[in-house]
């Protein structure tokens, strides 16, 4: 019988990084080494610990990384608590890749890109940002606006400082919600910061973060003159199968696991407001 996507493969956790007080990044490789499967930026995978639970997570590493996959996971439920408690060397099960991806080889090619992320919302965008950095010639101007509750809550802070900020080919603007000792950067919510920075409306925007942040960011972008067809986001709903069959992650007739998770705002606008 052919492989069935519902029967998972084994992944070994080879590194665990504590990014923020409640976010850890897990590095996963196949038992024989290398990646368990290939993916495109924005796609997701089902991670599971049998007996504990199974859930969908976006793959935060770039496909250009040929050695491993990474997942940045916030502790918020049964499975994520278990994952946060595990040690390096632990095996988990993994299946995927699921969903569409950001159109990095399609509509985004040659465009000026603006990434806007809030908190753990950086996880799916990090994959795209690193993909773009590795294929820098294919894209125009690249700007990242990233904000979090505090300095400690900025996911992948080390990579942002050491690599992205050091990269002359992209611009990174960071902000935190409240003033904090040791922080001399911008203070304020992401949507307001976006308005302050007033990026050029020629850019294509990729936004991800808490629903409330997305809502206000979109409103802000519209005020600046952006249209819905310029803005992409990525969604998350409860999923069981990952292939559009178990029937729960739909928004209208679109399944987030299969038709998403990446949607353009004009596409989302045609769907009912149930997410």
């Amino acid at each position, binding site marked *: 019988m052919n492989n069935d996507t519902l029967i998972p493969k084994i992944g070994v956790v080879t590194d665990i990084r504590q990014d923020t007080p409640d976010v850890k990044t897990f590095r996963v490789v196949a038992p024989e080494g290398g990646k368990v499967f290939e993916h495109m930026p924005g796609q997701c995978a089902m991670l599971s610990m049998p007996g504990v639970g199974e859930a969908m997570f976006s793959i935060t590493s770039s496909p250009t990384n040929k050695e491993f996959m990474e997942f940045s996971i916030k502790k918020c439920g049964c499975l994520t608590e278990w994952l946060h408690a595990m040690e390096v060397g632990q095996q988990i099960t993994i299946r995927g890749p699921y969903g569409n991806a950001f159109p990095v080889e399609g509509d985004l090619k040659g465009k000026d890109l603006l990434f806007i992320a809030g908190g753990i919302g950086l996880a799916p965008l990090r994959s795209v940002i690193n993909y773009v950095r590795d294929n820098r010639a294919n894209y125009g101007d690249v700007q990242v606006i990233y904000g979090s509750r505090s300095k400690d809550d900025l996911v992948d802070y080390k990579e942002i400082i050491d690599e992205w900020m050091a990269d002359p080919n992209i611009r990174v603007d960071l902000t935190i919600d409240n003033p904090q000792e040791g922080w001399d950067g911008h203070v304020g919510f992401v949507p307001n910061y976006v308005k302050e920075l007033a990026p050029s409306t020629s850019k294509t925007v990729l936004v991800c973060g808490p629903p409330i942040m997305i809502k206000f960011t979109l409103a802000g972008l519209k005020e600046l003159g952006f249209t819905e067809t310029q803005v992409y986001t990525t969604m998350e709903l409860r999923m069981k199968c990952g292939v559009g069959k178990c029937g729960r992650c739909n928004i209208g007739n679109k399944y987030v696991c299969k038709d998403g998770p990446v949607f353009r705002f004009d596409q989302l606008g045609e769907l009912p407001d*149930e997410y």
Partner: protein
Amino acid sequence: MLKISKSRLGELFDAVAAKQTLYIPTDREPGAAEYKKYESGMELTKELNTVRSAKDFFFPQTENLADFRIDGKNIEVRDIREECGDFVVFGVRACDARSFTILDKVFLCEPVDSFYKNRRDHGTVVTMACSRPAETCFCQTFGIDPTSPEGDAACFDDGESIFFKANTEKGQAFIDSIASLLEEGDTAKLDEVNAKTKEIMAKLPLAKLSTGNFGGDKLNEYFNSDKWAELSEACLGCGTCTFVCPTCQCYDIRDFNTGHGIKRFRCWDSCMYSDFTKMAHGNPRLTQLERFRQRFMHKLVYFPANNNGEFGCVGCGRCLAKCPISMNIVKVMKALEEK
């Protein structure tokens, strides 16, 4: 057409069961029929249809997807799939036969569900034309002709004999396998029976029900309808409609710790349940209104939107008969159509 006298039906069943597993609808108790594995002497029910639909044969209520063994930090995944044995489901009604086409659209589209396909490949569906439709029947609303059911092979009952017609190669193979029991028969009486059934069909209380006002293009119109509050008001949030429905296909995946390993199960789930879309950080369908709306929008709008206008209902009438509070797709359609 080839036929067999009804008095010899038992012989036919015995012959089929000698070669492969045969399931027939039989009476469990007065007024309640269910599919059972045929054993010699078992009689075909006189009920119009079974309480549970025939989807169980291809999409069972629970099934084991995989087993896991955990040893320290290591996990072993055991693929426990086995090639399914050949089987025949006899006496499926036209509505249920159509439901397989609908389930196929879900499970056989990429990526193919190998669990479903395995059973589908090995199962032969032998349908039975209806001659006594009930008041709850509305299969004609979905373009189904109960006097000429789909399925691999179709059977027709003229009161004295059962006639056989093949619709697919598998169906032809089934008829060939029992050919020695069949004889050529005259269908004049059968044509009369069918004509009479069609007369009844035209007189059914739900004969006028139409899907004309539904389909993929009605998404926002109906999603935002103010009828949902009233329609869902009495809904108990149970799964009766879902579980008796031949086309409901939502499922859940659960793990069970046996003490010496983990078994991963797939089981039916219902969008009517409060935890259907519950996540660690919230639930997009918080009240019964949203859950209720999802079920009917799925059948009447979302499914046709994704499947060239085909609806996710076959008009079998099970939910009409079984809903504890008698709320059902017919009432929903009629209410939504009222302007």
